[in-house]
């Protein structure tokens, strides 16, 4: 007997197909393995789908194909040494990971309030630039999965400009490792803010163009509207965060709820969806990028001069010329390199708004230069846990739209 009656059929097309199926002779259910290497799974996610005809009756996501043991590695390193590993969490927004990781360590060290203004502004620029870059790719890939290939080329061109900016800023395009505990690895290059300003003007045109390709495109609407609806209650119950949570109508953005750095100074809005379908999640990302541009413009206007590192030899490496001439700086340099910052005994959780959602670090310290335990709360890991609840009742073709709209990165999911 068919089990299609047992599950709630979620979308219109699936309902019609289900009605057909009931008059048909019921066959056996089929198990379909999707991934771990599938273009729509954006990495190495494996889905075990149990299907009745074209309708999914059961879905089991299988993660862990990219598990590298980052949390174990962190226990054997100083805080600064772990920084390059954070590049490889959400590898579409390494700058934001860098910033949020050092903010967590700084919270543990208790130096959050000592950070110079300029440092905080540059870090905010990094976070918002990373958000634009990550959403551009997320939207492009989402549109491509639903059949709109042009959008991908379009957003990718703009993303290239972000990478040029990042390369000028950090020396690397992907693996930025830009921040340090207590500051930054280097100051802004000369003329960089003007380049950023030009980029913002160009990228806003790109948003308009992307919207003309998608926002009222009937094919895109057909593929995304009323597909993959996550209710407000489900979204909170499953701990979703970022655009996926706000798409379901929950007004929760860590930048507003628990403002960190200098986010309370900026004028920006938090877009919130109404139905919680794939289309809402698309719309939220477009609007969020526009808000990021607003924040970046305010940063460019307000950024002060001054130092970029905290003035503490036990936190930040001293300048090289002083290391070579002064005893005290030499000792600081030696201690920082061999043993790292001496953290107090205690535990902290620091959560921040990454492009994919709330990226959190729980650090448990027994004192000394290495954490006793570092737990990474990866937004993609939590966002994917809803799949077994969300997918049943949808048609197989909707899976790619739903995966694209959830916009996850396996690097941070599997850690």
């Amino acid at each position, binding site marked *: 007997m068919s089990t299609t009656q047992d599950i709630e059929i979620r979308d219109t097309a699936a309902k019609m197909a289900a009605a057909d199926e009931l008059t048909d002779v019921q066959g056996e259910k089929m198990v379909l393995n999707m991934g771990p290497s599938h273009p729509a799974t954006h990495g190495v996610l494996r889905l075990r789908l149990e299907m009745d005809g074209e309708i999914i009756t059961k879905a089991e996501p299988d993660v862990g194909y990219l598990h590298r043991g980052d949390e174990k590695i962190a226990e054997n390193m100083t805080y600064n040494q772990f920084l390059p590993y954070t590049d490889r969490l959400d590898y579409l927004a390494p700058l934001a990971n860098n910033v949020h990781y050092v903010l967590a360590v700084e919270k543990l060290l208790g130096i959050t309030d000592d950070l110079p203004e300029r440092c905080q502004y540059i870090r905010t620029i990094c976070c918002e630039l990373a958000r634009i870059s990550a959403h551009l790719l997320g939207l492009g890939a989402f549109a491509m999965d639903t059949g709109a290939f042009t959008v991908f080329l379009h957003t990718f061109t703009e993303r290239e400009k972000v990478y040029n900016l990042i390369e000028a800023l950090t020396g690397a395009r992907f693996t930025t490792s830009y921040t340090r505990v207590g500051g930054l690895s280097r100051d802004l290059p000369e003329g960089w803010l003007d380049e950023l300003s030009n980029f913002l003007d160009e990228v806003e045109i790109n948003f308009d163009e992307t919207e003309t390709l998608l926002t009222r495109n009937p094919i895109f609407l057909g593929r995304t509207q009323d597909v993959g609806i996550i209710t407000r209650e489900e979204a909170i119950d499953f701990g979703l965060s970022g655009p996926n949570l706000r798409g379901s109508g929950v007004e929760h953005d860590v930048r507003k709820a*628990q403002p960190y750095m200098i986010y309370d100074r900026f004028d920006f809005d938090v877009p919130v969806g109404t139905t919680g379908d794939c289309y809402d999640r698309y719309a939220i990302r477009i609007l969020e990028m526009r808000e990021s541009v607003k924040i970046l413009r305010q940063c460019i206007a307000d950024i002060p001069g001054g130092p970029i590192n905290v003035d503490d030899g036990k936190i930040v490496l001293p300048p090289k010329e002083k290391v070579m001439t002064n005893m005290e700086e030499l000792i600081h340099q030696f201690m920082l390199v061999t043993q790292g910052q001496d953290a107090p005994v205690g535990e902290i*959780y620091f959560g921040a708004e990454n492009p994919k959602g709330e990226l959190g670090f729980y650090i448990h310290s027994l004192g000394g*230069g290495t954490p006793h335990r570092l737990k990474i709360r990866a937004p993609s890991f939590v966002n994917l846990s809803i799949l077994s609840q969300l997918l049943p009742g949808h048609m197989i073709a909707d899976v790619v739209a739903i995966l694209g709209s959830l916009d996850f990165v396996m690097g941070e999911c599997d850690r």
Partner: protein
Amino acid sequence: MTSAAEFAQQLKDEFGELISEPTEFRGEITVNIADASRITEVCEFAKHELDFDYLIDISTLDHYGEDPRFSVVYELSSISHRQHLRLKTQVTEEHGEVPTITGVWRTADWHEREAYDMMGIKFVGHPNLTRILMWEGYPHFPLRKDFPLEGKPTEVPDVAFTKTAPMEGGPFVTIASSENSTVREPRRRNPEDGK
């Protein structure tokens, strides 16, 4: 607006001796729950009475060589009150069990599976307590402190195998001593060897 400290006090008023005095560090409130088997009650109360509707994360700690050996750490958040609260409870190695809270927040499902996978803590009543990051049949719990960084060789026929990682002088913090660097490497460091 009610602060996290006041919420913690309300928890204490409700459960009395079960809940420790709230501690504050860097502006965060932590309360300890003396009896791990009552964690579900406390979470139910925190969710329904105190409005902590959002479970951020579940982490685990291994205090190797101490008793009780493990801690389970729950990070709670209230979307409407914009507050954060941390609940902690202890688990001994022999007992090794905590009741599941998947009935309170469904997001706990994957967090508890991860905690089981990495630390080997069992969550009683969990609907599907299987490995999530490692593969089914993997014999060890990698985040325990007695699991060496270099790994342990394993083999599950037709599924997967692991070998120890090669010693190549990784960027890890070594132990200060007069021994050579191979011995001082953390990858070699294993509490079972008494080092």
